[in-house]
């Protein structure tokens, strides 16, 4: 019985190790690309820009604050993302699990992640851009200055 339990523990531990992936930031992945190449990784960040659908897959670009990495995902996974980052919106924060490629054979040597799992951690939201009243005053002051410079020489003459 003890021997069976021991081997069970080893097998389960091995399965856990095999299925787990490395969590890394964009900077870590890029700076250690050779080490992570071909490995399963977990990467989190904000979806930015466009989701570019190419037949049954799509490109997403995800920025974790250090840099943005391209994610190649099946369309059904990409469709989980509803907001992408732009001037008006903060994009959905997502977690990607997939295979990291230092120089992807399929995609012309691009450094990318082929996603097998995407989870939306936090939905995106609209960004506020209030008008700064001090700037309005500055603009008016400059306009008055310009008018003075145009009109004054004519008055002096």
């Amino acid at each position: 019985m003890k021997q069976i339990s021991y081997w069970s523990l080893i097998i389960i531990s091995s399965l856990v190790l095999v299925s787990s992936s490395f969590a890394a930031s964009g900077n870590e992945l890029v700076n250690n690309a050779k080490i992570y190449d071909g490995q399963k990784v977990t990467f989190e960040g904000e979806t930015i820009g466009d989701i570019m659908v190419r037949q049954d897959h799509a490109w997403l670009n995800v920025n974790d604050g250090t840099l943005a990495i391209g994610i190649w995902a099946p369309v059904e996974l990409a469709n989980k993302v509803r907001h992408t980052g732009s001037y008006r919106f903060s994009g959905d924060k997502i977690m990607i699990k997939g295979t990291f490629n230092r120089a992807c054979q399929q995609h012309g040597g691009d450094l990318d992640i082929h996603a097998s799992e995407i989870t939306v951690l936090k939905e995106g939201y609209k960004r506020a851009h209030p008008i700064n009243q001090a700037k309005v005053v500055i603009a008016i002051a400059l306009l008055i200055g310009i008018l003075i410079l145009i009109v004054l020489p004519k008055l002096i003459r």
Partner: protein
Amino acid sequence: MFLRPTNEDIRTIAYYIGRLIVGLGVTIIVPLITAIIFREWDRALDFTISMFAAVFIGLLLQRLFPSKQDMNWSQGLAVTSISWLAAMFIGAIPLQLSGHFASYLDACFDSMSAFATTGLALIQNLDHAAVSVNMWRHLMMFLGGQGIVVIALTFLVRGTAGAYRMYVGEAREEKVLPNVISTARFIWFVSLVYLVLGTIALTIVGFLEGMPLVRSFLHGIWIFMAAFDTGGFTPQSQSILYYHSFPYEIVVTVLMLLGTINFSLHYALWHGNFREFFKNIEIRTLFISIGSLFMIMLVGFTQLAVYPNWVAIFRKGFFQLVSAHSGTGYMTVYAPQFSNEWGLLSLLMIVLAMGFGGSACSTAGGIKAVRIAIFCKALLQDIKRIMSPGSAIVLEKIHHIKDIILEDRLVRSALVITVTYVITYFAGTLVGLYYGYPFAESAFESVSAAANVGLSTGITTASMPTGLKITYIIQMWIGRLEFMSIFILFGLVIARFTGAKGRSK
């Protein structure tokens, strides 16, 4: 003996700088209208302030320093060099107001990088930048690539000898057409035609690759401006890697190569003289240079097994080489990958490509293909002289639109500029080393700044030392103007205190 600049000289210089600043202010109406169309009201206010500030400063200079006289050589060159600094300060105002920069110095860095068509950037949170901010960033690159003085000559300055002196000060010695105003207008005409065609091509490819139509169009305009003007800004932080698209990279490569071509050659091609393309010494030099450097790069890649197949080698290696040689600076790899994965041999090829540069009288930077060609021909001539009988006269010529005999003064002129470039590259490298960066990366970044390329190994970030930011700003400035107008400016400043009294012609 140097003559001391008189108050009249200073008045003339200040007056024309004022006119250029007003002209620059008027161009800010483009991002202002963009902000209104896209309802970016806070950014619209920023651009309104910037436009008003430029017009106010420009008018103030003209009112304080009125002048009706035409410019002499030193005045024209001084106006050019100071105008580029003034453009940097004005162009930085809306950038700083946008909130994307840690300091006004950082905004000035990006402004100079844009006008000098370099492409090194300190902007933060670019992926959330407004449409109008991206419009201004890329428009600055387009204006700088054509030449701020070229703009002025087209719209603001009458056809006078002083106009030619300013034009030369902007590192454009060639007159495509007999009259410098006509030359400036031709440069604009060609650029606008390519703008339409290039934008259409990029819009179509972007749309087919999955981008929405409006964004494809906007990205199309911006990428065209930065590619044809060999500047290298992009609206997203990943540079061209953002698009993950081979067709997009092909169109961009064509645009970069078009931007590298001499405007005189564009004129010849425009008028059906296609033979000129194959006979032209700059095209031949660029062809040989790109081909040779790529071959050596292949050796480096193969040795280190950097890429898995030929498609990847072409998409990464060839694209980056053209990006470097044209002075564009677009990246389809991440900055650390140059140092970590490419190896010193391939990295050196990129540094050489950046240093050599594109054609003269184009939007490209670097030493220039015609100067490289002149050296090679001069070397050949010397070898032939040694091998020929003593009484033999050995003539060598180059073909650039017309046949030009290789004279010693031509070689000397090319040598002076080349040596000055190399000194500038070296000086920037020393500053990088002083701040503790490794030699290869310091040299790479210095050449990238001075040759107005914009590729980076990762040194250029918002957190880099202030002294290094200022160094790269100066390098971008003097690299774009090819030294002479800046040396004249410093000469005038020194002569103001030490020169003899008298009237300059």
